[in-house]
């Protein structure tokens, strides 16, 4: 069968899958920095929502990583 392509597929899965979240996380954190720059006093209030937003964006990269693991582990 074409099992020779599994490592390539796993690499592409996580490689391409990390592009979007990478951009999203960078953009989100940048916006948080901007907001802190405009109003340094509420940096504590910005921290927790920023972390939650970054966690949601990172989850998409994690979905891609799980697919890569499934491919390498030959589960599916």
């Amino acid at each position: 069968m074409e099992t020779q392509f599994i490592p390539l597929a796993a690499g592409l899965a996580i490689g391409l899958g990390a592009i979007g979240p990478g951009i999203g996380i960078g953009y989100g954190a940048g916006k948080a920095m901007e907001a802190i720059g405009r109003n340094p006093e509420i940096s504590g209030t910005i921290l927790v929502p920023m972390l939650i937003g970054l966690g949601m964006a990172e989850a998409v990269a994690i979905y891609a990583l799980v697919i890569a693991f499934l491919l390498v582990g030959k589960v599916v």
Partner: protein
Amino acid sequence: MEHIEIGATVLFRLGPLPVTNTIFSAWVTMAVLVGVSIAVTRRLKVVPTGLQNLVEYIVELLLGVCESTAGRSRGRQFLPVVATAFLFILTANWMGLIPGYGDTPWLRSANSDLNVTAAMALIIFFLAQGWAIKTQGPLGYLKEFIVPNPLHILSELSRPVSLAFRLFGNIFAGEVLLATMAAMIPVAIPAVFFGLEVFVGIVQALIFSMLSLVFLTIATTHHGSEEAHP
């Protein structure tokens, strides 16, 4: 390097149900949490000191977050679920960093098993549906699948899936990362990644419980009346 194993090792069977090392680790986590609770509530003081003070501080923190998101009465109603999710996930994640945890026969970080995270996500899902029916009545609950958003069922079904996979992916990938780093560079560098995993552990616990709180709040909000989100 050892082979990456997504499925957990089965230890023994209770009748038809297999007990894996992740389930055993979850039991150990539960024993730790119950033990701390018993130790703290044995002789309650009105003015708390020591461990009781610390635990009350944590509970008040969580109550503050619940009330600021869901309002006073619903905040108290949701507190047990949200606080349990947060404390269990946090304790399980941090205990998974103790030396001895890994893909070992008896101990493996509880949330590195999709079954554990999916179980918690499904509990949140059914609680949200149940509370939605209770607050909006069966007709109001069914109306939501049609009126503002016909794809409402899709977004409802995608929530437990994303909750389960987010937590599983983060913790399982963290475990693989630590094992790989320890195998490649056994000196000094793994300490950096342990620090990262401590951070990821608490962030993921926070995200799971915050999202659960938000989903429960949305499910029990009467649509049509504009409830302000503070």
